[in-house]
């Protein structure tokens, strides 16, 4: 690049030529030399090979007849080749046989190997070529020749070539330089000339020069022509530009002249304006220009004006407003309002100012037009004063006044009119009169013609008719009187109408009130329940209301007062003696007496049952006090009398009752607590007679301590405040003995809420109290017993299972023959021990289950259970048993049937029932699990076609330890299965039923609540539950040419979840392995056509496959060789499944990352169980450390973090739960993998806790070894597998 920038074009062309030809030559030379070197090396090799071959064939006899001398003679022939450094002949076993060395130094390197299938190999090292060729006779190698040659010849050849290449290169470059210097002129010279002209043009602006054209038709000629043409064009356009410029200047001059003329015209306009006009500067307020009218109006000469500021013609107090208006600087035309201005002679004038912002001589300025309005202001003020006076007058008038114009539009209202119409003056002004003055006829409520209209029509004053209502705007109504008169000008021209009206509502209302009260009185008299009768002084009835007629049974009559008693059947209250007529209350009232509450009895044909009346009577007097008549008021007393009697009787009865009650002490206290009444019960309970206790304070019933602590007073206080007080406690009898009392004190209040005293009810509950205490004691006792039972169960489950686990574990280990072979008898006995132990474990579990159920301690965890998957699990667990008896184990259930049940217990129930069915059904029988929906229940059935159960035994089979008599002792089992199942079914709210006929099989059935689920949901759910996120199954390649054996191994592996491939042609094993990259390989040895060991070698020597573990499975008993050749496991046929799987698992584990770096800590307090676990883990290749109690475990984890902890829960010193919670709360150990292995019976809470805080949970009562190992592999090896 720097060449391109710095140098001239001719130099650049030269450089380019040189570089191109130099690079081409260099490449050609290098290629040639490289090719020659390679070829020459091959020739050398070929020569060497030939020499080796010659030596080989010449050494055959020497080798055959063991004559090294002869072979060395042959080798000596190599002296002729100066490049051979040394040569050797070897025996087939690698021993040197004959040797030759150019420098005669003894030189016997050991024979390097020749790859199989070849006769020759060579390599280059240390600047030497070495070649080995095997000597073959009749297809058999009988020795080998080794030749080592130096590369001297190769190097000297290379040097020669380098020199030649250098010479050729420099010669060529020289030639290129010469040629390019000739040819570059043709290109460079015209370009240089062109650039010189360009310089002239740009420097002198001389566009008339031209480049010399050249004859060549090539691009350069075109370039020069184009350049000349461009110059011509530039010259032309420059002339045009100058002309345009001149014309523009001319036009500017013309426009300036026009502008000046227009300006003069405007100034004339300004000067001749009849209003004073001036312009002032916004900032300084100085007057900049002023017209003639201003000079004339203000008295200043033009020159004086121009020396003033606006402030000078304003009043001093207006200046701030002026400044404010200037500061606002609104761009629009602005009416600055009305101001006072001062003339030169000092007089003030009113002016209306209009101000316009404008730019004057480049600065902000205002144009002001001032109109003198002094005269106008004076007239306006006089008018306003008159109007004010006028309206004040109207406002002070008591009547309402409304004025309108000739169109009936409101122009004026005084305040009375405003308040009556509800319209304010502002609202009403401009509105139609009809709207504001809304009047209707009072009776018809129809609109009345507006008087204003009438005035317009008739042209004279009018008055309104009566009964006119004014409806105000806010809904009020006023009775009004009004009149309207036209307003006429002097020339009797109508200006409008004035309407005057007043509110007359008050007057009218008073008249109506009197009338209404009269009617009301009448109504009251008629509607009251009391009878009212009024008579004048002559005994003539003036008033006799309906109640009186109804009470007396007879209405007003013409009878004289002396006949009233007889007429109306009036008697004294004894109901038989006729009432003396002169004593009748009305008669007495007419006489002028007042009669209060007199009772009398009425009985006449209309009131045959008689009626007791209570009567009040009064005389009626006129204004002068003279009696004019009398009035009586009476009401029916019959019902009240009856009620009073009833109440009295009831009170009597109650008093009797209280005094006779023996079980309760019922007494009354006055507000101070003094005893006011006493009943028989009180006497019985407390021992006082009523005459002994009445008048004493009730605190004498309390113990001295209670009295001292103020308890009696407290009781009364509480009762007073809350209405009631209840208490239990010791009280004293008269004889000083104590009794346990229940006391209720109730405050008694009269109708006004005034406290009248207390009622105190006391019960002797000493006996009751004693019973209650006994009961409480018994309950505590029972709870303690129940707790003890729980603890017993929990301890038993642990203590019984722990030794059994040792029995099972060790017998299992023995049976595996891991520690040496067992003879048949030992094997049999070990099996018996194992079976016995298992049976015992099952028995213990069953008994514990049963006890738990009986004790009501069985907790169910109800969830959504898919019946089909429960069936599948049960069937797969029981299948081996059924198969052993050649029975068919079937299921009949639809896939999406769900029940609400405890999943584990549901399976246990099915397992027990199906297990029983298998047990009791003879060989070849058929057992079926079925479930179907019946209403909102699912009926689950377990059917068999066994011998059935006789009817007399059907009721007893659910009892614990019951066994069918016919089956005898031949059948194993605890005899608890059915009992437990029946209880479990009951716990699920159902009942286990049985249908069976002897010889026709049996069917056990129960029902569980159905869970309705949307059709698509259950499938997904069951899948996600049953298939946890499984790792991809490891893939095993089975290399085995025998089809039967291959299939056997494959089936053993696939049944344990491995994916398998088979390679039946061992010659293709390597490719197949490399392609499929299996996780492990099983390899047979005796195969055709390639021996297994050869395959093994291939596999281990190929980097693609060398890391894949190989398990040799063969009949050849030479494990040493297999292992030496790299086999990871060596199994001797026949191989059983367990051994094969163990080997495969070991391989996969070691492949995952050798043995786990850290140990598994086993925490277990039972020594034998600990040993079982440790043996098991070691057998699977895990490193194990142990702890026998909680503190040891804590210390061990604190010291070094294990890979995993296998934790028992029941431990001395510190429980597994404590350890777990401690570990989980510590960040260092929060992620520690913990497996719990326990025989403890867990509560639901404990189980929930463990599920949340431990990786896995194993119960010793279940079979835990296999799941434990599986889980361990998952947890312990998974990280390294991921990294692999």
């Amino acid at each position, binding site marked *: 690049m720097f060449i391109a920038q710095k140098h001239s074009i001719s130099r650049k062309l030269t450089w380019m030529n040189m570089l191109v030809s130099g690079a081409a030559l260099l490449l050609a030379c290098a290629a040639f030399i490289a090719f020659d070197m390679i070829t020459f090396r091959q020739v050398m090799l070929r020569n060497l090979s030939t020499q080796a071959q010659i030596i080989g064939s010449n050494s055959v006899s*020497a080798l055959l*007849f063991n004559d090294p001398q002869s072979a060395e003679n042959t080798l000596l022939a190599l002296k002729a080749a100066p490049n051979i450094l040394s040569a050797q002949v070897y025996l087939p076993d690698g021993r040197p046989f004959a040797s030759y060395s150019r420098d005669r130094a003894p030189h016997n390197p050991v024979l390097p190997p020749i790859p199989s299938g070849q006769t020759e*190999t060579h390599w280059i090292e240390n600047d030497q070529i070495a070649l080995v060729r095997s000597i073959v*006779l009749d297809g058999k190698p009988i020795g080998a020749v080794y030749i080592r040659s130096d590369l001297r010849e190769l190097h000297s050849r290379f040097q020669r070539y380098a020199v030649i290449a250098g010479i050729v290169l420099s010669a060529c470059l020289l030639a290129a330089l010469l040629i390019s210097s000739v040819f570059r002129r043709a290109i460079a010279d015209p370009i240089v000339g062109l650039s010189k002209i360009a310089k002239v043009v740009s420097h002198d602006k001389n566009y008339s020069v031209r480049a010399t054209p050249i004859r060549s038709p090539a691009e350069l000629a075109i370039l020069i022509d184009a350049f000349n043409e461009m110059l011509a064009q530039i010259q032309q356009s420059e002339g045009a530009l100058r002309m345009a410029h001149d014309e523009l200047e001319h036009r500017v001059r013309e426009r300036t002249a026009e502008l000046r003329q227009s300006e003069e015209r405007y100034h004339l306009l300004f000067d001749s304006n009849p209003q004073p006009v001036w312009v002032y500067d916004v900032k300084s307020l100085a007057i900049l220009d002023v017209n003639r009218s201003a000079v004339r109006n203000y008295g200043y000469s033009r020159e004086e004006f121009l020396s003033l500021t606006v402030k000078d013609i304003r009043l001093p107090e207006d200046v701030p407003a002026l400044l404010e208006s200037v500061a606002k600087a609104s761009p629009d035309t602005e009416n600055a309002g009305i101001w006072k201005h001062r003339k030169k002679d000092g007089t003030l004038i009113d002016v209306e100012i209009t101000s316009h912002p404008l730019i004057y001589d480049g600065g902000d300025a205002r144009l002001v037009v001032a109109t003198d309005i002094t005269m106008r202001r004076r007239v306006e003020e006089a008018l306003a004063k008159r109007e004010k006076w006028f309206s004040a007058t109207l406002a002070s008038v008591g009547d309402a006044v409304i004025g309108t114009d000739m169109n009936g539009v409101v122009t004026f209202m005084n305040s009375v009119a405003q308040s009556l119409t509800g319209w304010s003056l502002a609202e009403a002004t401009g509105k139609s009169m009809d709207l504001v003055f809304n009047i209707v006829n009072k009776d018809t409520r129809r609109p009345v013609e507006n008087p204003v209209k009438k005035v317009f029509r008739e042209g004279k004053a009018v008055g309104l008719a009566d009964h006119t209502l004014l409806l105000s705007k806010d809904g009020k109504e006023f009775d009004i009187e009004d009149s309207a008169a036209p307003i006429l000008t002097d020339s009797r021209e109508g200006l409008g109408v004035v309407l005057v009206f007043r509110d007359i509502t008050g007057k009218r209302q008073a008249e109506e009130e009197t009338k209404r009260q009269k009617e009301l009185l009448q109504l009251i008299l008629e509607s009251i329940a009391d009878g009212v009768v009024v008579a004048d002084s002559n005994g003539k009835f003036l008033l006799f209301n309906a109640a009186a007629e109804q009470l007396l049974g007879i209405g007003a009559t013409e009878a004289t007062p002396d006949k009233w008693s007889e007429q109306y059947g009036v008697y004294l209250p004894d109901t038989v003696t006729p009432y003396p007529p002169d004593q009748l209350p009305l008669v007495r009232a007419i006489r002028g007496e007042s009669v209060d509450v007199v009772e009398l009895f009425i009985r006449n044909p209309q009131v045959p049952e008689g009626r007791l009346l209570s009567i009040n009577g009064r005389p009626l007097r006129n204004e002068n006090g003279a009696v004019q008549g009398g009035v009586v008021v009476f009401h029916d007393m019959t019902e009240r009398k009856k009620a009073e009697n009833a109440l009295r009787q009831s009170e009597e009865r109650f008093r009797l009752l209280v005094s006779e009650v023996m079980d309760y002490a019922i007494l009354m206290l006055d507000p101070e607590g003094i005893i006011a009444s006493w009943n028989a019960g009180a006497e019985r309970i407390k021992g006082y007679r009523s005459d002994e206790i009445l008048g004493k304070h009730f605190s004498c019933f309390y113990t001295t301590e209670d009295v001292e602590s103020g308890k009696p007073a407290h009781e009364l206080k509480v009762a007073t405040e809350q209405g009631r007080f209840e208490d239990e406690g010791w009280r004293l009898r008269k004889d000083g003995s104590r009794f346990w009392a229940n006391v209720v004190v109730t405050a008694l209040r009269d109708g006004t809420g005034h406290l009248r005293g207390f009622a105190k009810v006391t019960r002797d509950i000493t006996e009751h109290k004693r019973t209650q205490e006994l009961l409480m004691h018994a309950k505590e006792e029972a709870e303690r017993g129940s707790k003890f039972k729980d603890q017993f169960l929990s301890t038993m489950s642990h203590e019984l299972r722990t030794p059994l686990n040792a029995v099972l574990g060790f017998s299992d280990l023995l049976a595996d023959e891991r520690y040496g072979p067992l003879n048949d008898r030992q094997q049999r006995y070990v099996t018996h021990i194992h079976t016995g132990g298992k049976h015992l474990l099952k028995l213990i579990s069953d008994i514990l289950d049963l006890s738990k159920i009986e004790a009501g301690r069985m907790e169910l965890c109800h969830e959504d259970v898919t019946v089909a998957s429960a069936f599948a699990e049960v069937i797969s667990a029981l299948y081996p048993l059924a198969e052993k008896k050649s029975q068919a184990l079937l299921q009949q259930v639809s896939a999406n049937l769900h029940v609400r049940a405890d999943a584990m217990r549901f399976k246990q129930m099915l397992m027990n029932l199906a297990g029983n069915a298998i047990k009791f059904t003879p060989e070849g029988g058929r057992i079926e699990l079925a479930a179907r929906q019946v209403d909102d229940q699912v009926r689950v059935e377990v059917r068999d076609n066994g011998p059935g159960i006789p009817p007399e035994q059907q009721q007893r089979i659910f009892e614990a330890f019951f066994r069918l008599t016919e089956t005898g002792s031949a059948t194993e089992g605890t005899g608890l299965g059915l009992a437990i199942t029946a209880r479990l079914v009951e716990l699920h709210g159902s009942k286990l039923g049985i249908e069976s006929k002897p010889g026709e099989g049996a069917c056990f059935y129960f029902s569980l609540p159905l869970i309705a689920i949307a059709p698509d949901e259950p499938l997904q759910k069951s899948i996600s539950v049953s298939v946890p996120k499984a790792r991809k199954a490891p893939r095993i390649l089975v290399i085995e040419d025998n089809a039967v054996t291959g299939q056997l191994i494959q089936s053993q592996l696939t049944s344990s979840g491995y994916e398998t491939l088979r390679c039946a042609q061992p010659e293709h094993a390597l490719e197949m392995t490399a392609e499929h990259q299996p996780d492990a390989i099983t390899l047979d040895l005796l195969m055709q056509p390639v021996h297994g060991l050869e395959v093994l070698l291939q596999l281990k020597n190929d980097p693609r496959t060398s890391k894949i573990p190989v398990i040799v499975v063969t009949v050849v008993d030479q494990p040493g060789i297999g292992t*030496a*050749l*790299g086999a990871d496991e060596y199994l001797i046929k026949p191989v059983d499944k367990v051994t094969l799987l163990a080997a495969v698992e070991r391989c996969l584990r070691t492949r995952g990352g050798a043995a786990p770096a850290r140990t598994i800590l086993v925490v277990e307090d039972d020594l034998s169980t600990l040993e079982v676990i440790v043996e098991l883990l070691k057998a699977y290749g895990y490193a194990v450390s142990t702890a026998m109690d909680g503190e040891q475990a804590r210390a061990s984890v604190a010291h070094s973090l294990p890979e995993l902890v296998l934790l028992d829960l029941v431990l001395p010193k510190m429980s597994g739960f404590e350890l777990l919670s401690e570990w989980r709360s510590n960040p260092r150990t929060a992620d520690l993998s913990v497996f719990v292995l326990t025989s403890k019976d867990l509560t639901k809470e404990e189980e929930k806790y463990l599920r949340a805080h431990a990786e896995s949970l194993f119960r010793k009562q279940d079979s835990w070894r296999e799941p434990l190992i599986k889980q361990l592999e998952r947890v312990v090896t998974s990280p390294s597998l991921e990294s692999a």
Partner: protein
Amino acid sequence: MTRSSNPTSDQCPLQKCISNRPLWQCPTAVIVMLSLLHIPVLQGQQPKVSEYQVKATYLYNFGRFVHWPPNATATKGDSFSICVLGQDPFGPTLDSTLAGEMLDGKPLAVKRISTPRDAGECRILFVSSTEEHHLKEILAAVEQAGVLTVSDIPGFSRRGGMIQFVMEGDRVRFEINLATAENSRLVLSSELLKVAAAVRRNARSGD
């Protein structure tokens, strides 16, 4: 060129293999082990093989380097017979060494004969040292039959035998009487002559 990165120094490759990488990646070791498995890979002389085992192998190998005249009696049979005259010093080694081998397109056969008359169809006749006294008759009997005579009788080549085994210390070598062989129209390869301890060109020297 899988071996090109493998430096061949004076160190034993086997040791190197063992010290540096897994055993199965070392072909030398493999060969050793395959031989332990009795899988025949190479036949060669072992240092501890007995004298007669070597001699047996030589008898067979002589066959490779001798050209029999096409009409000779010795070439008549269907097999390539190697005969032992007199008491057999080889024991079973001769049979085991020669079993299954072929020469001149014919399967090898071992015959034990007691008289030179039976030697007519032998390609190679080994004369046991027990027959030293009848040597002259024996050689005369087979002279025209084109039989390659071999023996370890001292002075055998001098006395008209064709090839005589001689011991140089522990090593078995042989002398050739070329004239005798040419008498019987047998052509011995120069290769054979090259490795012989001595070659006599006159028929009976010093006899």
